[in-house]
């Protein structure tokens, strides 16, 4: 393997702080780059990311020694082919667009209204911790069918799983917290199953139990974990990035609030601009070539959708947040068989409800100090906090 010297300097800290300049350079100079710090070849151009997503027989989701498997077990995210299809089919009913619209939107709206009701009088809040996070958690708990779980439970489980899946430092405390969360979630699922078996409803666990090819209790416990891991941070960060984008671009905000630009465009631009999941892993299972780079079976790949979403070959002025740009083929939801299951839930609950509620009901909403806002992460990315005020 030839190592381009430039990539040896790339540190995980630098990627964490701001990965975009690094990715811009890789797209130009080394689009399938061996990055020692990440232990992977990073695929950074839009066209190559698409090629990987479309070829799961060469680029497998099953990764040897996967931290995710160690943390939360063999969920559908780390399976391919028929095994993956079966699990996905059992879970999919409640998150398809019609079910979302007819059965879940009223619930999501109540959750958002209740949170905003609690905020209005306060006149100030951190939109990440006080709105986006709790809303994502409340919606997810309901959707899964775990009514006894509080939003705080859901958020802490989710964080424990995410930390476990990214525990490259092998920190024993992180493993412990993850194992504790697995146990508590298993108990919550075990508590929910007997009732849902007798009384089917619109939830994901119920769907898994009553599918044409139903899942076993063990499969349900395992796969609920991936919904928890993927169902809080991503909507939280999408809401937060969208809010940050509009709060720092007043002209675009005016356009949106006057109805000239739809909320849908705000949501799609937010997840294009800062993809909540920036990178996900694949493993090469047969020798191949990608963008002129020879890859061998066993090589690890990082599919960098956050870079594909800023590929200058596809998007004009890609680093700019611009809700008026023409709809383009961003890859924030991934692609192929693993295309994000939560796509339609996110579109409906964020573009349809969360963002209009925030900007519609908090008059004069503004950032306390726009320059103080920090985003972090390159595998997952979003603002750490959004301190805001409004006239109460």
């Amino acid at each position: 393997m030839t190592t381009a010297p430039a990539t040896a300097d790339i540190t995980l800290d630098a990627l964490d702080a701001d990965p975009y300049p690094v990715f811009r350079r890789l797209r130009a100079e080394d689009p399938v780059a061996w990055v020692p710090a990440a232990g992977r070849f990073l695929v950074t151009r839009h066209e190559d990311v698409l090629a990987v997503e479309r070829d799961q027989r060469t680029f497998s989701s099953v990764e040897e020694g996967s931290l995710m498997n160690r943390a939360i077990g063999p969920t559908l995210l780390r399976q391919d082919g028929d095994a993956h299809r079966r699990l996905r089919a059992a879970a999919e009913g409640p998150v398809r667009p019609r079910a979302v619209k007819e059965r879940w939107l009223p619930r999501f709206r109540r959750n958002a209204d209740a949170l905003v009701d609690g905020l209005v009088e306060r006149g100030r809040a951190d939109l990440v911790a006080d709105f986006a996070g709790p809303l994502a958690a409340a919606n997810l708990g309901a959707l899964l069918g775990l009514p006894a779980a509080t939003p705080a439970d859901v958020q802490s489980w989710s964080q424990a799983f995410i930390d476990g899946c990214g525990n490259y430092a092998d920190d024993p405390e992180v493993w412990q917290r993850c194992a504790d969360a697995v146990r508590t979630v298993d108990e919550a699922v075990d508590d929910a199953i007997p009732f849902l078996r007798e009384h089917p409803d619109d939830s994901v666990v119920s769907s898994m139990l009553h599918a044409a090819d139903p899942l076993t209790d063990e499969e349900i416990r395992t796969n609920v974990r991936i919904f928890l891991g993927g169902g809080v941070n991503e909507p939280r960060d999408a809401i937060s990035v969208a809010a940050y984008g509009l709060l720092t671009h007043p002209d675009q905000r005016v356009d949106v609030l006057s109805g000239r630009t739809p909320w849908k465009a705000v949501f799609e631009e937010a997840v294009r601009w800062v993809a909540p999941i920036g990178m996900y892993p694949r493993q090469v299972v047969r020798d191949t070539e990608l963008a002129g780079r020879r890859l061998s079976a066993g090589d690890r790949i990082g599919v960098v959708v956050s870079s594909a979403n800023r590929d200058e070959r596809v998007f004009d002025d890609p680093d700019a947040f611009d809700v008026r740009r023409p709809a383009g083929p961003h890859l924030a939801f991934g692609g192929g068989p693993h295309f994000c299951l939560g796509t339609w839930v996110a579109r409906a609950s964020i573009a349809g409800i969360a963002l209009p509620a925030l900007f519609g009901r908090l008059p004069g909403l503004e950032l306390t100090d726009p320059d103080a806002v920090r985003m972090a992460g390159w595998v997952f990315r979003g603002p750490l906090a959004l301190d805001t005020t409004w006239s109460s």
Partner: protein
Amino acid sequence: MPTITFRQPDGAELRVDAPVGTSVMKSAVGADVPGILAECGGQAMCATCHVYVTDDRALPPVSDEEDEMLDCASAPRTGHSRLSCQLVVDEDMDGLTVLVAGEGP
């Protein structure tokens, strides 16, 4: 092998060999037809493989899943709208022309 022609909104056309038994979407993606992103890989889950078929030869009926997803397509849905991933190529499709819907206006 049947051939299918993909016409873009601007009139550009691409004629593609479409193996019997695969989807119309797959033949488009294999030939890099612009505007068929097919994000979900053919699961009727993304609506980014939307096409208009005006040719009145018999096509399979629209399933419930295809129907709900067509409602989510970004280009306007018409009576001719189909998800190309749900159309399986057969010999009768030889010579079919479909219009790529893309992102819409």
